[in-house]
């Protein structure tokens, strides 16, 4: 009798205790994010990830994609600043779970927190990859996620960037920025043409070929068009080109005076720009759908270089109404105008996609990139070698690209928003005025 009773009482207690467990909905936890937080919360600055050469599962890999993909992904993840990448020579043999387990154990013993195993199949002119991510902080080498990708083999670099961005997504909840483009100005002979390249400088190609002076390219948020100022028809007019479509350039503004300094609104529907047609340079907003121009500033000073806040509700610009040019902020209709920097000569303001910081160029003898909080506090210098101008933010706000003369001649470099890790981004040309695109749709 006692046993029965004990069991029954125990059973009732169990049922009571069970209810919360059985009725709790499965937590939508991102496993990779947990791993990342555990690693960085535990004191490591970066997550160590092992990326061996991909395993060829089928087809012939004459182009060496199994190796290249791993290398490019490693470079992307290193660039992100979130990862320390370890590679291994020689691919993981296929269909050999024991070899994989041993490889991961060796990497884990060497300090790796995660491993990426790519399974590559070359099928005709297509590359199919299954990318498998493993948590090496767990003794059972728990798989975190697997994802399949299928691209033409001519898109091998893009395939690597997509995989890298997905790894970042798995670990941080936000995709990486490897699948982005840079537009910039390249000096060729006596001309300056607009070019587009991958964010890492690969595959630069001209967008303009008019032999004239083409300036200040900026991407539309949908990465389909680049607006820029060009002297191709004799005067500084504003155009829009479509690098990835067979589509002629459009004229955005060709008024008397200067037509310059374009900036697409975050929703892509408006372009802020500078026109001097009404007597002196003022800020206007062009609504692309209607073609209507709305004037925002009314002051005899130079007002130029508008740049949108990420919520599209405010603009930062420069004005020399107080003497030299300094940063001002106004709302998108032109009201609530206030100055946010004091100092000598501030130009080229760029609002971070995160909304909290504005990068700009300050002249103090030479030129340097500075950052200031959007409320005007904590202005600080980020560069100090050579002349540095024309900052542009990566779409996640984690990086800045800019032009520098520190190596003799202009070159595009990247750095983190605290000024660390300044290094070349685009090589091989005399390059200025970078604009960093959003992630390719």
């Amino acid at each position: 009798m006692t046993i029965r009773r004990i069991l029954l009482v125990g059973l009732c207690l169990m049922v009571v205790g069970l209810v919360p467990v059985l009725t709790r909905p499965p937590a939508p936890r991102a496993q990779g994010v947990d791993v990342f937080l555990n690693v960085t919360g535990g004191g490591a600055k970066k997550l160590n990830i092992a990326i061996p050469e991909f395993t060829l599962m089928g087809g012939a890999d004459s182009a060496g994609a199994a190796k290249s993909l791993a290398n490019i992904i490693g470079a992307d993840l290193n660039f992100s600043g979130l990862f320390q990448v370890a590679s291994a020579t020689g691919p993981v043999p296929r269909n050999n779970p024991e070899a994989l387990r041993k490889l991961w154990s060796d990497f884990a013993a060497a300090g790796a927190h995660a491993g990426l195993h790519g399974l590559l199949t070359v099928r005709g002119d297509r590359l199919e990859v299954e990318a498998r991510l493993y948590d090496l902080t767990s003794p059972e080498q728990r798989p975190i996620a697997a994802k399949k990708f299928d691209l033409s083999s001519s898109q091998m670099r893009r395939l690597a960037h997509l995989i890298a961005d997905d790894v970042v997504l798995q670990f941080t909840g936000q995709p990486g920025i490897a699948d982005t483009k840079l537009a910039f100005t390249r000096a060729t002979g006596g001309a300056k043409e607009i070019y587009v390249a991958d964010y890492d400088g690969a595959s630069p190609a001209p967008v303009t070929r008019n032999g004239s002076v083409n300036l200040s390219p900026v991407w539309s948020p949908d990465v389909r068009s680049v607006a820029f100022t060009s002297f191709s028809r004799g005067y500084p007019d504003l155009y829009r080109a479509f690098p990835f479509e067979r589509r002629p350039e459009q004229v955005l503004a060709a008024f008397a005076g200067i037509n310059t300094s374009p900036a697409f609104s975050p929703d892509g529907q408006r372009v802020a720009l500078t026109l001097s047609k009404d007597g002196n340079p003022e800020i206007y907003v062009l609504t692309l759908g209607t073609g209507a121009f709305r004037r925002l500033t009314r002051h005899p000073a130079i007002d130029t270089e508008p740049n949108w806040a990420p919520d599209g509700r405010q603009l930062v610009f420069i004005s020399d109404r107080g003497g030299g040019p300094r940063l001002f902020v106004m709302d998108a209709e032109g009201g609530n105008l206030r100055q946010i920097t004091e100092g000598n000569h501030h130009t080229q303001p760029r609002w971070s996609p995160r909304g909290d910081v504005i990068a700009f160029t300050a002249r103090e003898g030479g030129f340097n990139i500075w950052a200031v909080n959007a409320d005007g506090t904590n202005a600080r210098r980020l560069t100090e070698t050579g002349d540095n101008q024309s900052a542009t933010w990566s779409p996640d706000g984690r990086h800045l690209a800019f032009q520098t003369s520190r190596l003799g001649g202009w070159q595009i470099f990247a750095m983190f928003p605290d000024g660390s890790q300044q290094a070349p981004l685009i090589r091989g040309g005399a390059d200025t005025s970078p604009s960093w695109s959003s992630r390719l749709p």
Partner: protein
Amino acid sequence: MVTRAVHLAAVSLLVTVTAFAGCAKRPAMTQASAPPPATAPAPVAAKPAPPPPPVVVQETVKETVTVTPVPAPAPPAPPAPTAAAAQPAPTTRPAPKEFAVNANVKDIFFDFDKYNVRPGDAKILDANAAWLKANPGQLVLIEGHCDERGTVEYNLALGERRAKAAMNYLVAQGVQASRFTVISYGKERPFCRESNEACWSQNRRDHFLVKAQ
């Protein structure tokens, strides 16, 4: 009989509960509908078993990313002047290359960061004005320029200020305003390319060109 059945049910429920309680501590497992035992690390197998599929969130495995390739930039077609904006046709702007230098209309120069006409340059403009008034059939193109030190956009605006400063002075001297066209090249069309003040001072200039009406 009944007590035995209850006994069994209680025990099996106990076992199940314990198993669940254990699982609750590993929330990852609750995501999959029925985690197969393959998640436990397989012991070193003597026989070559087929590789166990990784246990993953189902939707991730099923998702395949097939991306339409982004083609390389197409060679630019000759620009068709289709306006995106319904803007007023610009006042007919003369083609800059139809203008030429004339020794009677001389350039003037500016201090760094400044657009005001200096007294010495004012005398040059006086002479320019005299010739232009004596030759009313000549149109004038004033180019405003900056030296290389400076950011692209601000220098476009400063160059325009320099050109307008000269134009305003000449108009005040009696030259008809409608004869002038102003264009700023910012720092983009320097006269010389050395990085020193001797060259910079030559680049901070208004350059005058004329053409017959």
